[in-house]
């Protein structure tokens, strides 16, 4: 297994966890501006990491799937989760 791939995937997991935590906090504190700033920061970071992962190893979500860039529909050709993909 590619270690950079694993590292990036772990990073995405951690950042996404922060996003989920912040959204849950905001559910009960919807006017907390500081929390919104935290959220925006980590959402941007997550999108960036997701795009980087998609470019290198294939898309994790459909919105990062870009068939033109890699001359094939990686969404379908990369391993599915039950085949050892992510």
């Amino acid at each position, binding site marked *: 297994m590619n270690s950079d791939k694993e590292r990036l995937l772990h990073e995405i*997991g*951690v*950042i996404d*966890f*922060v996003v989920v*935590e*912040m959204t849950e*906090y905001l559910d*009960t*504190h*919807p*006017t*907390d501006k*500081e*929390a919104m700033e*935290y959220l925006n920061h980590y959402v941007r970071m997550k999108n960036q990491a997701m795009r980087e992962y998609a470019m290198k190893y294939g898309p994790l979500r459909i919105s990062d799937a870009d068939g033109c860039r890699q001359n094939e529909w990686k969404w379908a050709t990369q391993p599915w989760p039950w085949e050892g993909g992510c």
Partner: protein
Amino acid sequence: MCLSGTVIVPYHTIVLKNPRVYERKTMQDYSFNEYFDRFPIAMAYVPWQHLTNIFENLDEAYRIGTIFPELEKPFTGRRCVK
């Protein structure tokens, strides 16, 4: 229940006053020291969380299961002992 120094805001106070009207209330709608004398006994209350900071080490937060230091409550498998 320990009230000293603890911010406890009765989330459902509005509901108790008028059970037929559901009003969406958030933390900012309350001042913290109100309503203490109106708490019915034998009920459970959840203090509101206030954003202080988040863990600097997010890997650590991921492992712990929360990004909020004040919510780090490791389960020790023991009952509460005085």
